[in-house]
């Protein structure tokens, strides 16, 4: 039998809340737009490996250099040979270098969104004042800006070089402006497609393979079919086949409206009427990928 000790019950006067000096935050609250801007700038820096480990800087920087070096070489050749025009049009450059652009988007789209999914940090973002739309917009804008930097930088190299080589100013400026519009569209389109695919999987490696598969297989399939249509003399079909891959889509838009020469087999670009369809499909795809991302992030991780 346990000995019963008298319980020292002195109710009421033992518990108290000490004021040890915690203070509430009463400074300025920077709010939703500030958080969105921060997410944007962090994502944009991350897309070039800034603020991340040295290892993750290697690939984006390498691809950036690979994008710009051919432009520099072309400029050097144009200056040395006193050519009257650049060897490659401003609008054509991104089409020629599409393998590099595809690799960039494939490597950076998953690192932008997949890791947030994998380490379940998405709910942490949404515990801040930002909304789903802000997250999607910030990531979309950041990746599109990163791609624009990648694709516009060689155009700037070409333009500056062309002016140094004293090529016709009005002509070069027009071409440069057309090239910028074209790569801006390309950046938006590829960023949207890349992010939609990458946001489905938390596995980075798998995301990379999926993005590159969609981009290269669609381009390979479309250009094969176009080549066959060209051989079969059904050149009317070439333009319609081009609607089914992102790069040929941009090619069609710039051929119809931005004064580019088409890279389609036979050089048969879309006419103005078909070009309107191209523009509609391009804008539709950009809007569609934004809508899909919104839908994806409505319920993700919550």
């Amino acid at each position, binding site marked *: 039998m346990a000995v019963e000790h008298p319980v020292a019950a002195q109710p009421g006067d033992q518990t108290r809340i000490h004021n040890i000096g915690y203070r509430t935050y009463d400074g300025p609250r920077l709010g939703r737009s500030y958080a969105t801007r921060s997410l944007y700038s962090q994502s944009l820096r991350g897309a070039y490996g800034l603020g991340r480990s040295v*290892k993750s800087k290697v*690939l984006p920087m390498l691809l950036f250099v690979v994008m710009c070096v051919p432009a520099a070489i072309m400029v050097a050749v144009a200056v040395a040979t006193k050519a009257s025009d650049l060897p490659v049009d401003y609008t054509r450059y991104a089409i020629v270098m599409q393998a590099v652009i595809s*690799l960039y988007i494939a490597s950076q789209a998953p690192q932008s969104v997949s890791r947030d999914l994998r380490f379940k940090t998405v709910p942490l973002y949404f515990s801040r004042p930002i909304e789903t739309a802000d997250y999607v917009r910030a990531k979309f804008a950041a990746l599109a800006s990163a791609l624009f930097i990648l694709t516009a930088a060689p155009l700037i190299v070409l333009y500056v070089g062309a002016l140094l080589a004293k090529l016709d100013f009005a002509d070069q400026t027009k071409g440069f402006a057309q090239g910028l519009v074209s790569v801006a569209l390309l950046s938006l389109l590829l960023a949207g497609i890349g992010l939609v695919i990458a946001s489905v999987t938390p596995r*980075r490696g798998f995301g990379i393979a*999926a993005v590159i598969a969609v981009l290269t297989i669609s381009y390979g399939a479309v250009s094969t079919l176009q080549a066959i249509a060209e051989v*079969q003399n059904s050149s009317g079909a070439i333009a319609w086949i081009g609607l089914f891959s992102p790069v040929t889509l941009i090619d069609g838009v710039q051929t119809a409206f931005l004064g580019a020469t088409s890279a389609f087999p036979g050089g048969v670009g879309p006419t103005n009427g078909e070009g309107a369809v191209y523009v509609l499909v391009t804008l539709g795809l950009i809007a569609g990928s934004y809508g899909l991302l919104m839908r994806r992030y409505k319920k993700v991780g919550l």
Partner: protein
Amino acid sequence: MYDPTVARLTYRALLGRRRALILGALPVLLIAISIAVRGLAGADDQTASDLLGGLALATMVPIIGVIAGTGAIGPEIDDGSVVYLLSKPVKRPTIIFTKLIVAIAVTMVFSALPTFIAGLILNGNGQQIAVAYTVAALVASIAYAAIFLLLGTVSRHAVVFGLVYALVWEALFGSLVSGARTLSVQQWALAVAQKVAGGDLVTSDVTLPTATVLLAVVTVLATWYAGQKLRSLTLAGEE
């Protein structure tokens, strides 16, 4: 040398959920395009050869090889669950060999088989084109799986490097610099295909003996080195 349990786990990792989806989507697309081309253009040996060479062997086989080869080991090393496998009394070269067999089998099933079907659809195996490209895809599957499995053990960015090799080196440099073609799995596989087809529709820049030796050496070396890498594997933290 072959461990059925490791094989079963690898199959499940490779073919589970969404991964199987993309692995299955590519062959379906190839066959769909073949049907479309047959409908548009009719049976034509040159078209069949272009399509199988350009789309199936140059694009589809490497991509499936990358997914299967790096996917067989990469994710496990990535998320650290490979330690549970390594702590079992199974030799590490055995693990690599088993995973290689699985990766080869998956690559073959998802690339060589559709290539054969596409070839049959395109021209009904006229001039042995379907068989030739199927053999090329089979041979390429072995080499790609070994190379990309090695990449998976060496680097955390194996998929990117694999794709850089497959798309930039083989496709871009291969078409610009002829010397790069000697060091390309695709050309080695084409050399074997050239022997099978016999005609002049399938051509390679590499002679058959060179190709065979290089294929064998690359496969064996890559597998051996992957085993060595796994023996001394250190688990790195997340970047």
